[in-house]
């Protein structure tokens, strides 16, 4: 049996089998076992068969074989022969798809000359037009691919066809008429785009346009499991590219599009607006100038009478695109386009603030920054009217509305012409005209508005402040004197104005000052700083108004160019205050301001290694004051909170210093330059005088700032054991004890090598200390255990596998089980000292590691635990979960869900409940199927926690969290699961609507509103 016979047999039964037969033939051809002539001979009989089906299958066979033959097997002559032969088969009308496939295969195996490409195109048009006569998509598709390939590779040849035959293009267009399949349409659009963009289409423009626009708007919706992955968006994009491809379409495109803009369908309108925008961008200024006014008249309607926000946005894009395109041409058309816009916007501004004046403002601000020409024309057209309207306005609301537009115009001006420090889109060209002309008037109006309007006119004054800020930024507009006036007004507001409402004005004023400092640092230093300083006394008489001034002044440190000056002034003020015996409150405020300023400039400190001036000027004096006992030691420094501030200031400066610089301080870590031997001080001497203990707080912050290479003032083992002993001392104040415990964590985390870390706990666990001995367990030891673990776990050390089980065993400890359980939440809790900035060793995977070592063991032990100790496991679990990002937990959630639900029943453990609700809410959001089967018990428990219960009152925070979590349920679980609970939830939540706390009521209202919608969900799906 010949290959073709086998192929015919298999073709209807098993396509893959048939393909393999064709492949076999191809291999034989390649190897020379089969001559091409023989193959054709065998085929002859079937090609001429009476039976259409056999003819179709035999050409399919040929196409498949050709597809499998490797390149270079067929000679040019053979390929030409085959080409002629296949092409002649297209007369048949059947098997056209296979013919096209065969031709494509031949083309891939050797490039054609131009003439051949032309012949193929002509033959296709002659024999197979229109293509829609072939009912099968699979027949038409290869033909379209063939034509697509012809256009891609033989552009000139086909173009010659068009140039030499007047009717070619109309036949070409008609050929694709009536195509409906989305896959084919994708090809048709891209085929037709070639003549559109490259050929001289002349009289055929309308036909060509109609050929694609007939499909507008695309309403195709892909089937649910669409294997081809063509979306409506793909089709829309290609169609839009066609419409915008040539300016020749303009006479047809704009009227047709504007006609469709009247559609009631939002989707159609959206497509129209997008098509208009891209057409305007492509058609060029000459063409667009003919339609610009017509388009404006149509588009403005969408903005002035907003139907959907995004439609208005698209229409604005269209208007801006027109202005953009016209800016590329001569000034006449641009003028003609902007004139009606300016006129109309001016009219709407007259009755500001209304919906339409807001729309006018949007139009103006959207267009204003597209080019320098547009900016100038708009400003010149709008500003005169605006200021006239402003002067005659009879109410504040109107003035505010007008100024809002003005601010937008200044911003557009900055976009185009730049500010003092950078140039705008127009490059370095100097701004001219309109804005400069109104400079003095604008400055006066804004200054006057901000200065004299009543304080309760918040929104009006905010606009004035914003206007002044923008005005001061405009490149080469205001003189330094004028900017100085603005600064003066702003600092007067910050310093002298009575506080009102949310203090939005004060906040805006100080932020404006920071921004102006970025533009003109020296003017701000000259004008504003003396005013601030004058408000800060060297010594205070118990008055307290200066804190607000200090806050504002510290904020100035946000601006790099004035940072150094801010710090310098604050430092001088601090020295003066101490020497004048100022009150503790004032000293603390000054220290806070220094710390705040340093935090804001910490980036600058890190980049600049030369921080030694800050070390000499700030850190060293502070440390000496801290440890001294004479008059240089302010009374405020006896307070632990003050020392915390001092420590933090030192930390932020020292931590960016080099190891060498740090070593100078490291040796004074505990002595703090007081000249007493280290051994007589804490933590080495527990019985030191009480004032010496407090400086441990400063030492902790210093230790935190050290690099891990910096040498400690004593052997590390000795330091650890001293700290362990020291922290157990019962007379320590809470801040000192907490600071010392953190030192323990810091030392272990930073200064042990990875190898030493594995055994670092051995001296503590062995006799005589026996840290983990259950009988010896007591609160101080529990604290030590957690402090040590904290340092270790951040490094993901393998020793955790040995240490964690001991900790887990303690959860069933009869006396301290609960305390240990609560301690679990300290393990992963973020700590502001143990951080990367403080050179701590923090492994990226430490949370995963601790989770994997702890959580599965807790769930396991929970099942076996006695009834009294079960709650300890729940507490421990939530203590871990509350600090974990949910993606770590997500895989284990199914095994945790029952524990989480039971956590909601615990009495008096509010943090536990809160953490459990948090995890349940994340589970609902990310993995709702896990919760589905527990819906009932979850809902009833959340309800119980959302309502205040007299017997075990939950705090408002938990009640509100329960409401918020409950609100997620209808969104995340299936309707049939949720529906049965609707009545119950809505009824029970009525009690929460009357909660004593506003926070809870607000959450309950939202939650209940969501649940009330539950039964409506079915019928509003459109």
């Amino acid at each position: 049996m010949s290959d073709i016979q086998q192929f015919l047999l298999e073709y209807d039964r098993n396509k893959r089998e048939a393909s393999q037969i064709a492949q076999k033939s191809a291999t034989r051809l390649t190897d020379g076992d089969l001559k091409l002539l023989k193959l054709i001979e065998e085929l002859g009989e079937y090609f001429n068969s009476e039976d259409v089906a056999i003819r179709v299958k035999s050409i399919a066979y040929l196409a498949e074989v050709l597809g499998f033959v490797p390149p270079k097997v067929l000679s040019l002559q053979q390929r030409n022969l085959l080409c002629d032969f296949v092409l002649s088969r297209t007369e048949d009308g059947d098997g056209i798809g296979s013919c096209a496939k065969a031709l494509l295969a031949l083309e891939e195996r050797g490039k054609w000359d131009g003439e051949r490409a032309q012949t193929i195109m002509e033959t296709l048009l002659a024999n197979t037009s229109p293509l829609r006569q072939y009912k099968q998509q699979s027949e038409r598709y290869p033909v379209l691919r063939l034509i697509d390939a012809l256009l891609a590779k033989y552009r000139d040849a086909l173009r010659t066809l068009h140039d030499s035959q007047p009717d070619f293009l109309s036949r070409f267009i008609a050929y694709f008429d009536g195509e409906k399949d989305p896959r084919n349409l994708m090809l048709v659009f891209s085929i037709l785009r070639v003549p559109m963009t490259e050929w001289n289409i002349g009289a055929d423009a309308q036909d060509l346009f109609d050929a694609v626009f007939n499909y507008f708007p695309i309403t195709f919706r892909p089937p649910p499991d669409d294997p081809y992955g063509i979306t409506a968006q793909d089709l829309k994009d290609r169609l839009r590219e066609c419409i915008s491809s040539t300016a020749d379409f303009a006479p047809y495109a704009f009227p047709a599009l504007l006609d469709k803009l009247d559609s009631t369908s939002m989707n159609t309108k959206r497509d129209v607006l997008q098509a208009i925008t891209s057409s305007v961008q492509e058609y060029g200024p000459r063409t667009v100038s003919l339609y610009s006014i017509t388009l404006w008249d149509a588009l403005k309607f969408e903005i002035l009478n907003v139907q959907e926000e995004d439609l208005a946005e698209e229409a604005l894009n269209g208007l801006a695109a027109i202005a953009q395109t016209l800016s590329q041409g001569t000034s006449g058309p641009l003028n003609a386009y902007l004139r009606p816009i300016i006129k109309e916007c001016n009219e709407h501004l007259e009755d500001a603030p209304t919906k339409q004046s807001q729309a006018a403002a949007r139009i103006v601000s959207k267009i204003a920054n597209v080019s320098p020409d547009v900016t100038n024309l708009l400003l010149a057209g709008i500003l005169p009217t605006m200021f006239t309207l402003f002067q005659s306005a009879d109410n504040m609301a109107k003035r505010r509305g007008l100024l809002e537009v003005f601010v937008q115009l200044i911003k557009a001006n900055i976009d185009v012409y730049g500010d003092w420090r950078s140039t705008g889109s127009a490059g370095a060209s100097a701004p001219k005209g309109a804005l400069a002309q109104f400079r003095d008037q604008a400055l006066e109006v804004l200054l006057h508005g901000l200065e004299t309007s009543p304080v309760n006119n918040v929104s009006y004054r905010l606009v004035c402040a914003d206007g002044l800020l923008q005005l001061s930024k405009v490149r080469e507009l205001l003189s330094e004197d004028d900017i100085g006036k603005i600064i003066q007004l702003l600092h007067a507001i910050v310093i002298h104005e009575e506080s009102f409402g949310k203090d939005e004005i004060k906040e805006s004023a100080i932020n404006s000052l920071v921004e102006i400092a970025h533009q003109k640092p020296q003017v701000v230093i000259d004008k504003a700083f003396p005013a601030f300083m004058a408000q800060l006394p060297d010594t205070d008489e118990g008055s307290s108004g200066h804190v607000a001034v200090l806050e504002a002044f510290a904020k100035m440190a946000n601006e790099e160019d004035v940072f150094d000056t801010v710090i310098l002034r604050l430092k001088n003020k601090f020295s003066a205050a101490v020497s004048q015996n100022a009150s503790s409150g004032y000293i603390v405020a000054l220290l806070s301001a220094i710390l705040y300023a340093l935090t804001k400039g910490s980036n600058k400190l890190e980049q600049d290694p030369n921080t030694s001036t800050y070390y000499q000027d700030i850190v060293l004096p502070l440390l000496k004051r801290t440890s001294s006992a004479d008059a240089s030691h302010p009374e405020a420094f006896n307070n632990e909170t003050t020392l915390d501030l001092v420590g933090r200031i030192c930390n932020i400066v020292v931590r960016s210093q080099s190891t060498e610089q740090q070593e100078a301080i490291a040796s004074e870590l505990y002595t703090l330059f007081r000249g007493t031997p280290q051994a007589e001080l804490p933590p080495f001497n527990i019985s030191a005088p009480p004032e010496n203990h407090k400086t441990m707080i400063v030492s902790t912050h210093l230790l935190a700032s050290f690099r891990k290479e910096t040498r400690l003032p004593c052997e590390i083992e000795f330091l650890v054991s001293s700290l362990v002993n020291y922290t157990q001392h019962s007379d320590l104040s809470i801040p000192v004890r907490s600071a010392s415990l953190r030192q323990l964590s810091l030392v272990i985390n930073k200064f042990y090598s990875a190898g030493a870390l594995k055994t670092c706990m051995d001296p503590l666990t062995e006799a005589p200390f026996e840290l983990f001995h259950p009988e010896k367990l007591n609160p101080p030891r529990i604290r030590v255990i957690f402090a040590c673990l904290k340092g270790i776990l951040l490094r993901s050390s393998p020793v955790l596998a040995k240490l964690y089980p001991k900790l887990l065993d303690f959860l069933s400890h009869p006396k301290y089980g609960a305390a240990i359980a609560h301690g679990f939440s300290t393990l992963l809790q973020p700590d502001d000292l143990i951080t990367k900035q403080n050179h701590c060793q923090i492994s990226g995977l430490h949370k995963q590691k601790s989770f994997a070592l702890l959580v599965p063991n807790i769930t396991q032990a929970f099942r076996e635990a006695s009834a009294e100790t079960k709650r300890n496991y729940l507490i421990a679990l939530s203590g871990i979960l509350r600090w974990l990002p949910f993606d770590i937990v997500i895989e284990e959630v199914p095994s945790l869900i029952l524990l989480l639900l039971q956590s909601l029943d615990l009495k008096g453990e509010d943090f536990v409940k809160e953490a459990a609700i948090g995890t349940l809410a994340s589970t609902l959001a990310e993995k709702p199927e896990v919760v589905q089967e527990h819906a009932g018990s979850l809902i009833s428990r959340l309800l119980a926690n959302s309502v205040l219960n007299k017997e075990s009152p939950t705090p408002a925070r938990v009640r509100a969290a329960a409401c918020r979590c409950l609100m997620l349920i209808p969104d995340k679980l299936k309707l049939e699961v949720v529906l049965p609970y609707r009545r119950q939830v809505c009824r029970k939540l009525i009690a929460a609507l009357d909660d004593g706390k506003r926070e809870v009521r607000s959450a309950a209202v939202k939650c209940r509103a969501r649940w009330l919608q539950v039964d409506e969900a079915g019928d509003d799906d459109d």
Partner: protein
Amino acid sequence: MDVDKQNANPTILSLSDLPSRRRGSNLNRRNDGSTGLFDGLIPQYSHLNDPFEQSLSSSDSDDDSVEDIDEQEVFDLISSISDPEHPLSLGSLAVVNLPDIHIQPPSSPHSSISTVLVEVTPTITHCSLATVIGLGVRVRLEQALPPRFRVDVRIKKGTHSTDEAVNKQLGDKERVAAALENGTLMGVLRKMLSTCE
């Protein structure tokens, strides 16, 4: 298109001019005039670092003071309702105003029923949608306030050509109930309430 819009160009208030709870309440103001900028410098959660301290700290955050439902809270409930004609809130259109909301305490010591009176100001005097707006406010309050409040929604006197007729409609329980059975009307109301915060 929407040629039937009753008022195509209403006046709009700026959001920062709407009354809000924080404004003017001096409860959180510090006596030294500061804004609390420096409070964050020393983290608050340091105390959590100790296993023995947290059971104490969890309870002290919740004091027993009761925050009563006041006019501002009622305003917050209804000001974010959307206008049926514009994608704007009733608050920014000045349809609902804080001074037009009144809470009357129970009339006798034996009764627990308080009354919330809301007077609505239509944007124009012949607005036929006034009833719908009134209904929207009423539905929202009935869903969001506890049952001890009786809700009374009216058109502000002199702001509407047929205010008495509309008030009659809004006050008539049976007519309100019948209106809520109407599917189209419910659709409009649902859309209005969907922007509520």
